[in-house]
């Protein structure tokens, strides 16, 4: 699993990747009450806002950690947004993206680097 400084994660499986928000981000947001998922078939560029996660208090953009085509969205989150809090780095994934540039993944932080980054916040 690789991470961005905006607290998204990427888990590569072949030429696709699951993406979501980190446990740190989910904890910082608090209780998630609504998730706006990306449309399947949409092409996203790294750094684009591609989903919105909303807590009781605020709406937060989620930025695409990598570029590619959205090939699946986690529809369970539409009816059970709290799964993001329960398992942010697992069943609380947001979308599956077909990678358009695999080298982007290598430039992201591994878990150790991300933990080190979190310790500076």
């Amino acid at each position, binding site marked *: 699993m690789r991470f961005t400084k905006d607290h998204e994660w990427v888990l590569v499986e072949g030429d696709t990747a699951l993406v979501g928000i980190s446990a740190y981000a989910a*904890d*910082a947001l*608090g*209780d998630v009450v*609504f998730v706006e998922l990306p449309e399947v078939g949409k092409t996203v560029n790294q750094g684009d806002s591609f989903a919105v996660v909303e*807590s*009781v*208090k*605020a*709406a937060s953009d989620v930025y695409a950690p990598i570029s590619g085509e959205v090939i699946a969205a986690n529809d369970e989150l539409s009816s059970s947004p709290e799964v993001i809090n329960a398992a942010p780095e697992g069943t609380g994934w947001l979308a599956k993206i077909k990678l358009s540039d695999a080298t982007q993944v290598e430039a992201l932080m591994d878990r150790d680097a991300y933990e080190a980054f979190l310790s500076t916040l």
Partner: protein
Amino acid sequence: MTDAPNTETLKYTRLYQRHVDLGARMVPFAGYAMPVQYDGVLGEHKWTRAECGLFDVSHMGQARLKGKDAIATLEALTPTDFKVLKAGRQKYSLLLNDNSGILDDLMVSRPETDGLFLVVNAGCKDQDFAYIGRNLKGDTSLEILSDRALLALQGPKAKEVMAKVIPAACEMYFMDCGTFTWQGHTVYVSRSGYTGEDGFEISVHENQVAELWDALLSDPVVKPIGLGARDSLRLEAGMPLYGHEMDTGYSLAEANLGFAMSKSRLEAGDILGFDRLKPELDGGLTRVRVALKGEAGPPAREGAKILTEAGEEIGYITSGGPSPSAGGLIALGYVPPAFSEVGTNLTWDVRGKAYPCTVVALPFVKNGYHRKKSA
């Protein structure tokens, strides 16, 4: 996670360390480091509706107006008749500017026969007290009670908790107030709050607040509640929040706060900015505060546009979010009076997409006030 605010200018209530030790997430609010949540906003919200929540609201401003012209002083700056405020009672009121714009909302009580006790919003308190201080009439003195802390105990079980700590306060009804003794110290208590639930607000000297906090929190039905749930609770109760539903641009007619205006003051026409207010009260409004309910989709938050079903922009949201207790989505906002009737179907815009909503009556969630039953 505990984010200690690192802004040197922030002020701290005497309970700061208690909040940190309880695992609160501290945020800057109105110049104070305040707990926005402890375990989580949703859980704290629901706990307050079902059990009892304890809030540190020591950041709010407290003051006492004394002297034989104290009532005249306050009446000149508000639309409320305080001559009829009996000892032991409390009134909601509004501090107005010359144009009848709302400078703040406040609670005014008479816990003692001599003088009026004021509680104002934290973010407005310095300018409120300066404004009142500049406008003191005759024999009036303003005493700013900066050494007093304020706790709110709210929820259906607040009474049973209070019965063990300040039992005499349980004899009060909604919007009653009184002076009580706790552990030898004077406390001012009112039966009121900002959640729609039964409950108490307790003014205590800051030197004793930690001890009182601990005493209330030692009851297993009591949990500490942060500002996040305080906001969602007040929204469900339909209560306006200064800086959102109200500011100096709005009149009490627009903000739909006519209950803060006494009939005698309206008849006398001696309310600040009456030239502006009177035509608005007589039907000349261009916007009025409404309550909106939606069923599905993303929450409509402050700043979201309100549209007709046909897509014409007619107003805007001032507060909005999910309703943890009623379900669905709720909001307060402003629309022209023609669209303010209960049952009017409208839409609100979130990120460029319109979602249906309906004008509803307030409150969103039935209140639990302990009112005196009429004979």
